[in-house]
């Protein structure tokens, strides 16, 4: 009796709070775009942070000298144009009248300050390695910046287009110490409110140098770690837009029919990498055999719900540089050829570990498919499934046989390939050493024109597929799910959210 009544009361309360609250508050005059993301920002100082999640806000708060458009061409951002008087000199001509969020004018002095800040070892900027070829930055006048290099480096512009090279306001950095909790940019939005792990509100910058932009008054980023919760937020219309990375949840969003799902391949690259100093991977024939044994499309279908594009060493959406995958023989799965190569190398029936992590980009599902495909050619792969922290630790120590990884690519092949596959490359955890590849990578970076560089990088790609320090698998799709009334957004393969400045909401 009593229990019953209480039970009903409780149920009634739950139901009452669950019904949509119509007209809660009068229609706001402000146009707000609520954006669901699964990761919180680590810090906001563009010159210091490494986290991808941070860059997605930094992209909206700051500008760089140059940037990438949706077709991955370098275009001017704060620089209107630039010339190369010689291979070691760049002269940038800045836009006039660009203002920082506090109203101060952005001038060449800020650019010089920013670049020197990145180059200063004390800043510990991850962007330093992108531009450490610079041996001098000067400002001949208020709107001109002159950069001098120690040696010609073709990927300099790409380095300057990285989020780490965003131009910061000198006086603001000097006031605040660093910019981790505040910002001092020129971007389309300004930081209005930040409650960590809850939300971040960015308000429209009324002084933004691009006329008529941004098109919404504010963007509210909501941090919602669970993919299912993100979808629930979209369905209940608490969110206007969300980045969803889990393939099964993307499929559910597509099936819902009421949401608009935008997809494009990213510049990230899923690879199956080898420790080339450990048996059986010391023998290039074994690595090549595995490349022949693997059916890449099957992995995409099983592990990513079809949401990926088969790719070579240069991520597939980088159309300027990437060779079509049909030009690599290894891309037609050929178990017979794989078995034959394994026989020749004396590695038939070999056993080894595949190190993976179930979280982040650890690739557990990918490893499971690889395991079964390798079994078909007589290789016994044992999956070593570890926590993310341990995964990173093993990666840093190069303590693994093989590993499923996700690498962040770059529109410029030098930026990605040199650090990854050069014998002394900082992230060459394959311990891969190939004199021919080194020589090609060295040549590729000193030439500046695409026409000169293209044949070199095509040779690099072929050498990497055959030499196989890793089996290159695919680039995952990036998916943005939005309400049908959200217009004007476009995915850039770099993952930058620059198009939010052109996005409008017409509810």
């Amino acid at each position, binding site marked *: *009796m*009593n*229990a019953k009544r*209480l*039970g009903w009361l*409780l149920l009634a*309360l*739950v139901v009452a*709070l*669950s*019904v*949509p*609250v119509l007209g809660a508050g009068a229609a706001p005059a402000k146009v707000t775009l609520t954006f669901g993301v699964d990761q*919180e920002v*680590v*810090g906001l100082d563009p010159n210091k942070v*490494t986290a991808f999640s941070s860059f997605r806000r930094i992209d909206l708060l700051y500008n760089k000298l140059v940037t990438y458009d949706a077709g991955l061409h370098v275009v001017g951002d704060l620089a209107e144009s630039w010339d190369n008087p010689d291979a070691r000199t760049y002269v940038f001509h800045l836009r006039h009248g660009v203002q920082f969020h506090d109203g101060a004018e952005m001038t060449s002095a800020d650019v010089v300050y920013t670049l020197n800040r990145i180059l200063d*070892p004390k800043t*510990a900027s*991850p962007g*330093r*390695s992108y531009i450490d070829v610079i041996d001098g930055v000067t400002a001949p006048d208020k709107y001109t910046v002159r950069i001098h290099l120690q040696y010609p480096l073709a990927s300099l512009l790409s380095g300057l287009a990285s989020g780490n090279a965003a131009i910061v306001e000198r006086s603001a950095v000097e006031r605040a110490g*660093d910019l*981790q*909790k505040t910002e001092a940019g020129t971007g389309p939005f300004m930081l209005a409110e930040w*409650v*960590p*792990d*809850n*939300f971040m509100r960015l308000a429209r910058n009324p002084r933004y140098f691009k006329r008529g932009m941004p098109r919404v008054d504010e963007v509210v980023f*909501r941090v*919602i*770690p*669970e993919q*299912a*919760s993100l*979808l*629930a*937020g979209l*369905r*209940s*219309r*608490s*969110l206007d837009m969300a980045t969803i990375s889990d393939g099964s949840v993307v499929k559910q969003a597509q099936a819902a029919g009421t949401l608009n799902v935008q997809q494009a391949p990213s510049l990230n690259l899923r690879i199956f990498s080898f420790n080339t100093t450990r048996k059986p991977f010391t023998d290039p024939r074994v690595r090549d055999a595995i490349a022949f044994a693997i059916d890449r499309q099957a992995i995409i279908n099983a592990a990513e719900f079809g949401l990926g594009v088969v790719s070579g060493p240069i991520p597939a959406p980088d159309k300027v540089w990437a060779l079509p995958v049909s030009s690599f023989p290894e891309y037609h799965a050929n178990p017979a050829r794989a078995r034959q190569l394994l026989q020749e190398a004396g590695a038939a029936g070999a056993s080894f570990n595949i190190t993976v992590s179930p*979280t982040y980009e650890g690739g557990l599902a990918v490893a499971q498919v690889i395991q079964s495909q390798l079994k078909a050619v007589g290789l016994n792969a044992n999956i070593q499934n570890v*926590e*993310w*922290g*341990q995964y*990173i*630790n*093993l*990666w*840093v120590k190069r303590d693994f046989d093989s590993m499923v990884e996700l*690498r962040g690519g770059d529109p410029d092949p030098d930026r990605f390939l040199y*650090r990854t596959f050069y014998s002394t*490359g*900082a*992230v060459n*955890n394959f311990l891969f050493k190939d004199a021919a590849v080194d020589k090609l990578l060295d040549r590729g970076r000193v030439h500046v024109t695409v026409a000169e560089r293209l044949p070199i990088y095509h040779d690099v790609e072929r050498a990497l597929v055959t030499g196989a320090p890793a089996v290159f698998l695919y680039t995952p799709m990036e998916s943005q799910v939005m309400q049908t009334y959200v217009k004007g957004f476009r995915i850039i393969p770099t993952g930058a959210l620059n198009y939010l400045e052109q996005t409008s909401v017409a509810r």
Partner: protein
Amino acid sequence: MSAFLAGRLLTLIPVLWGVSIVVFLLIHLLPGNAIQMFLGTQVAMTPAQMDELRRLFGLDKPLALQYVDWITHLLRGDFGVSLRTSRPVLPDILRRLPLSGEITLLALVIALVIAVPIGISAALRRGSAVDAAIQLGGLAGLSIPNFWLATMMLLALGNVGSIASIGIYVGFFADPVRNLAVMLLPSFSLGIALAAVMMRFIRSSLLEVLGHDYVRTARAKGLREQLVLYRHVLRNALIPVITVVGFQAGYLLGGTVVIEEVFALPGMGRLALAAIDQRDYPVVQGVVLVIALLFVLVNLAVDLTYALVDPRVRYG
């Protein structure tokens, strides 16, 4: 009583000290470190740059020295600075504490509101079909993991379009209605398992008391059944329940870790989870210490309540 209280408070010191050592060692024993997590697998850094970062984070010192550093600062009320966000740890914890506390409290209330009446009616109808049904329901409540229940509720409510599903968190005092709208589902999914535990506990405790001689005596002297129940049975049966509630409050606080993650609530649990993931040592250490402190304080409070409810229990 005050001597007892003082004694109990003194024992907190070695307990918390022990906790501080264990948590410090455990988090530092985990493979990987803050800098590795910070850089991930994408960033190219020279060994010299890595060393610079290590010095910057104070990770170049021997472990024992790092511990002494931490504990001496702690004694001065300084919980240190997060390696990940460079924000001071204590204000971050204190800002998130009310949320986790509210979920815990609401879950407890929900659990009791469900468990007490149902547990009593099950005991009074022992052996009946109603009892069997309640027992079965209790078993289900116990077996369903709360994160699964939470996800299912989210999905279901997401379909009908509800503000209760995923809202921006606001404090209770800022806007009670919106606060409850956001907090009710998480509290419910956390409280349901506890309700099942409590219900079974109340039922068996009640059955035990019902079999006692004094109950038979009370009935024999012609007391109304209602009076027997309220004055003699419930009073005695509910005393052990208080102990269990106290213990469970501590576990509920731990349970908020998962629930906060599912419902995207910025509480202490979420802070801890991210910090463990990132090997953000000062934050993990701080959160665990605060939870341990709360746990022992709740237990102390339970012991004191005990004396209030049962006149036979006396301290000091």
